[in-house]
């Protein structure tokens, strides 16, 4: 579903944010991506979504290169950034309708899906309000609905649990499981290691832009907890 091959990204000024990173995410995977602040997680996710240009390596989504066929690749992806800076001048429903127009979701399907997800996430009543009146959590929920409404094959999330209330957090985890059962792949970054340990079937750990461990969650952590493994691996000598 998502294949990252030798990805390297150097920012202006020479900072190498991601260094020769390769990763393969298959349908049905819930792939957790963990690392310290500034390790290169968000850069990798942004490159996968086509938001950020990169110099070396390539990223393939369903076999298509994000560099060569960006529009085709993006049709299969949904991305939720860590800080949902949505269009504050639109109402919630206008935003969702805009996303549905762009992803060409049919008229009947969009209403049905929006209603379903908005009800589950308890946002339906607020959809007529301007996004500028939403709290951080409500924006996060709206971003989540906008990601689910076009049934993506690959869901990329940057710190998805930040700002969500416990109930919504629980609902999101259930949804993630459900989506994976239907063949969707999920790639997300998180600092909440407990969540990663319980939720993900695969884990990747990044340090200073380089992948230092990846694979089945059980294999990566061995007999230790994920937190212990992470701290051990990422501690500077």
């Amino acid at each position, binding site marked *: 579903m998502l294949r990252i091959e030798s990805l390297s990204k150097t920012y*202006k*000024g*020479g*900072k190498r944010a991601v260094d020769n990173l390769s990763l393969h995410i298959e349908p049905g995977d819930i792939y957790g991506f963990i690392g310290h602040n500034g390790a290169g997680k968000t850069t990798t996710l*942004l490159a996968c*979504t*086509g*938001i*950020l*240009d990169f110099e070396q390596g390539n990223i393939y989504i369903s076999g298509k290169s994000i560099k060569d066929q*960006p*529009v*085709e*690749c*993006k*049709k299969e*992806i949904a*991305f939720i*950034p860590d*800080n949902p*800076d*949505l*269009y504050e*001048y*639109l109402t*919630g*429903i*206008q935003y969702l*309708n*805009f*996303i*549905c*127009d*762009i*992803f*060409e979701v*049919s*008229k009947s399907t*969009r*209403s049905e899906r*929006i*209603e379903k997800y908005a009800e589950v996430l308890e946002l*339906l*009543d*607020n*959809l*007529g*309000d*301007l996004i*500028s*009146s939403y709290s951080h959590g409500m924006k996060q929920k709206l971003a989540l609905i906008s990601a689910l409404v076009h049934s993506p094959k690959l869901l990329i999330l940057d710190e998805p649990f930040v700002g969500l209330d416990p109930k919504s957090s629980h609902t999101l985890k259930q949804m993630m499981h459900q989506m994976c059962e239907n063949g969707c792949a999920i790639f997300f970054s998180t600092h909440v290691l407990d969540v990663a340990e319980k939720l993900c079937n695969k884990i990747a750990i990044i340090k200073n832009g380089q992948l230092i461990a990846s694979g089945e969650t059980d294999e990566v952590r061995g007999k230790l907890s994920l937190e212990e493994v992470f701290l051990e691996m990422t501690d500077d000598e």
Partner: protein
Amino acid sequence: MNKIFFVCKAYYLSFFGINKALHSKDKHEKIKTFFTLLGIMLLGLLILGASFMYSLMIGTAYRDFGRPEALIAMMMAASSIICLATTISKGSSVIFTSRDYNIIMSLPVKTSDIIIAKLIVLYGMNLVFTLFVMIPATIVFGVFTAAPVVYYLVALIMMLFIPIVPLIIGTILSILIGIIAGHFKFKNIVNILLMLIFTVGVMFLSFSFSFNVDNPEQLFNIGNTIIATFYNIYPLTQMYTLAVSGVNILFIFTFIVISAVFGVLFSWIVSLKFKQIYTYLTSTKSTSNYKMQELKNSRPLKALYIREVKRYIASPIYIFNTAFGAVMLLIAGVISVVSQETLLQAFSQEPMLANFVNVLIPMIISIFVGMTNTTDVSISMEGKSLGIIKSLPVRTADIFLAKILVNLTINIPTVLIAATLFSISFKPGLFIIVMSFLIPLIYSFFTAVFGIVVNLIFPVFDWTNEAAVVKQSVAAMVGILGGMALSILPTIIVGFLKETGLIIVLALVTLATILLIILLKNWGQRKFLKLH
């Protein structure tokens, strides 16, 4: 006092990307900022030179009639009007509705200090305008009257106080507009209308004092009227003029005290109600009773266009700053039809003048089209939401096209109406009529595409208030001034070559537009991908 300095410093460092360039490790970024600042400085010198010539011309006429101090009065009033007019549209945006409100209000800084710091930021912007107008006028008056050194010292100190009162009046009007508009369902539209009424009112007031430099006698009489009128409606003009031209200690002291007291009093009063005003201006009604309805669907390009239109009409300052030229053009068109008889009568007596004016009609419309540029900040206006549009499965060309279409939505109807009105009033002949439609329409495309290119070169996404993008960003300045320059220069060509000039301009602008489109398709798309 220290805290005011620190807050001001934080704001000023964001200007023109100075801080970014200082701390950037990227050489290209530093070089770009260096040349941008150099360009701004050269432009400043150019404006200062033009202002000096203007002061010299008018000052000479006033001196000849024994009223040199009228120059000081006139320029003081003019700079006050500029401050007032520009603050009406951006005052509340800079002081109250900045995105940094939560951060700044959580700091251990007194609210009155925050207000003072924000007023100083606004003051700094207005002071630049004031100095551009007042320095040349002060020198011209000083030379003409052989004024002593103390005059220059007094004038230099006094001119620093000129923007304070107009700035505060402008901010009060800006707050009032926000509060009045808040009572209406379509508050943005009411907001824009009120801003337009106030600003056009201020401009008409100043235009009504315009003069004919070719007729010194008329200038003298109008000069007296100007002085008397400004002395009446804005007493500080009289106080300033008498204080500076006569180095009058009492007036110097009174002027400074009035300005300072006004500033401190305003900061104190606003600081008492700052949170309430902020809440009032920024709060949005939420009904929380949405019921699922049938949704309309659109094709992706139409959806992008609708989103762009909604983004545009959601920002009164964006509309006000970019559609002002179009409004002025339409007003000019209506006035030309209303005063058609007088125009035609004047033209029948001066056929040469008629030919000259008629041939310039397509270019005059084009200058206003060049001023109406929404695209030069349209990418910057994405702000921190840029990632959304970049992550969507749409072609970059369609993103550009949606932004261009918004500009065309304003300019094309304006051109069609204005060209029709001017054709009716001036009756310029078939060739000029055709050109009056054709050239401005091509200019509409050129302006829109040019704006996108400019914004791709000078993007800014980390802004805290919309005024920072729409009014103070390099892209906005280059877009508007560049657009105007690229229509004024061809106007000079047309002035010399008449009808042939129009054909040359049409060919050149069409070619330039095609080249810019090719540039956008290649370099532009690559550049957009690199933005973050």
